[in-house]
């Protein structure tokens, strides 16, 4: 969707056109839901947060001026809600070091079983969940949601350089967590 298309879409929504808002949902509902699911780890919670996000998006669309891409703006709203959810929940979690120890031990304990691709994904998933929130957020937004560095920076309200360094550090951490890796088939440079 071009910026012009986005502006027209927003104008139609501002004029009360519900079908236009459904078009917006077509483009962003799945992505926002997946993001919410990352933060909530629960389908009912993810649905609630997704609903809150789109309600906030709808209410705030009157203030959207098209200075940034619509997607970037939506992600920023979404991240605010997701981080708020994380803040409220305050889950009791294991100290980070203990979690890492568990995952690392598990991963290296039985390398043959980890041959299964689905299990590999689960390992990657577990490793991502062991990252610090700051590192996990950039991984989720860039690697899983496909945002550019610039878009991630806007969503997290941090400089692009910070996104770059966090990603680099996050991957270094994942490398340490995952150890020998991963699937065959990727060409080398």
């Amino acid at each position: 969707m071009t910026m012009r298309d986005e502006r027209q879409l927003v104008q139609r929504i501002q004029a009360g056109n519900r079908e236009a808002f459904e078009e917006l949902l077509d483009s962003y509902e799945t992505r926002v839901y997946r993001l919410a699911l990352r933060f909530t780890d629960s389908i009912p919670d993810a649905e609630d947060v997704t609903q809150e996000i789109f309600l906030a998006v709808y209410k705030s669309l009157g203030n959207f001026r098209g200075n940034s891409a619509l997607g970037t703006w939506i992600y920023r709203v979404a991240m605010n809600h997701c981080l708020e959810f994380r803040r409220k929940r305050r889950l009791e979690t294991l100290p980070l070091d203990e979690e890492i120890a568990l995952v690392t031990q598990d991963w290296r304990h039985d390398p043959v079983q980890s041959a299964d691709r689905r299990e590999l994904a689960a390992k990657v998933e577990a490793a991502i969940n062991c990252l610090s929130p700051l590192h996990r957020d950039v991984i989720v937004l860039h690697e899983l949601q496909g945002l550019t560095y610039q878009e991630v920076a806007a969503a997290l309200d941090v400089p692009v350089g910070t996104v770059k360094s966090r990603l680099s550090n996050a991957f270094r951490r994942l490398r340490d967590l995952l150890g020998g890796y991963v699937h065959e088939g990727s060409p080398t440079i």
Partner: protein
Amino acid sequence: MSPTRPDNLPETPSTRRPARCVGGLLKTNLKAHLDGEMSAVRNWLVRWHLAQCAECREELRWLRRLGEDMKDIESARPRPELRARILANLPSTPPAPGIRVVHSRQDLVRSPQRMPRLALAGGLAMLVLFSAAYAVKRSSDATVAQQNSLTVALHNDKSTEIASSVPQANADVTPTVAYVPEDDPNNALADKMFHERMTEMEREKQILGQDDWHRLLAKARAVARKTDKTPATEMGIALTVSNIAIIRTHLPTWAKQEGVRLVTSGKTDPDSSDNTPLLRSRTGESLDNLIAFYVPAERGPAFLGALKHLGQISILPLTANPVPSTNLKNETHLQVEADVAGQRRAVPAFPMTADSGTPTQRVAVAHDKSSSTARVLVVTVLLLQTAAHD
């Protein structure tokens, strides 16, 4: 995709790297290189290095593989009922264009009609959201930072920056979020909103007074009794600031004079470009630019008064500000690990919830008098904590 046998795969770089790659600095750029997020020059440097370094080539290969596998793990899809729920709960009134809220420093910095970057880099005026709406002349001129002045930056509904300068004599004008109504030719609505905001802030300024300190201290001690039965003799006040350099320049001497302990030590943030020691939360989150004071209980009110009137720092309310800052929201719940009584330990957070009747957030603004400009917008969360003290 064929099943994978990790034991047949190339070793991960971390397991077989006996010595540091000579291109260590470039190595940190491999991820950005892979993502095509580097300048042409840096790209060229990385490629040049890759041609010579087998270790980095392998690391790049590893990064690419992991990235590809990550793309496969996101497969959840929302149930159709969710769409129906969202649509059913939309307000009946359309989101018509209305008031624009300038809600963060980032917004100001990123806006296209901004002061030149060099000017920013020169440490000029902070682009704080001053609510001097009534004093602001509507103008489409770009902000020009002036010596001996503070910059007011507001936006109107068309995102045109409205800028004005406030003389240094008025530097204590209270920063807040600026609202610029869309259609308000006489600024009547802006005046009204500004007045309401100021009244609200003045009221909140009183909250952290002597009575509040004693009330909070009593509550903090109750919390301490419940946790480790050690009565608190100090209370910790943690602030995060956006420009720690100024804070660190000014505060240590002052804290010593005031008889309070200032804590800024901690693990170094791996993402920080400098080596500023920082505190870190128990959950691993880096607490960028966080400082903490530990104040003897009996000195609390005096300390707060001093903090408020310190030349470089003013503590101002934030709670009324609808600032959707991810950083802010993220920081309010952090468990702080700090050096307490010579030991590194987690500081039990004192929950400043509604029932305590006291807001948790304040804005601190550092005025750098040496350059006659206010450089720091900041912010933040004032957590009152018990410091279970031996």
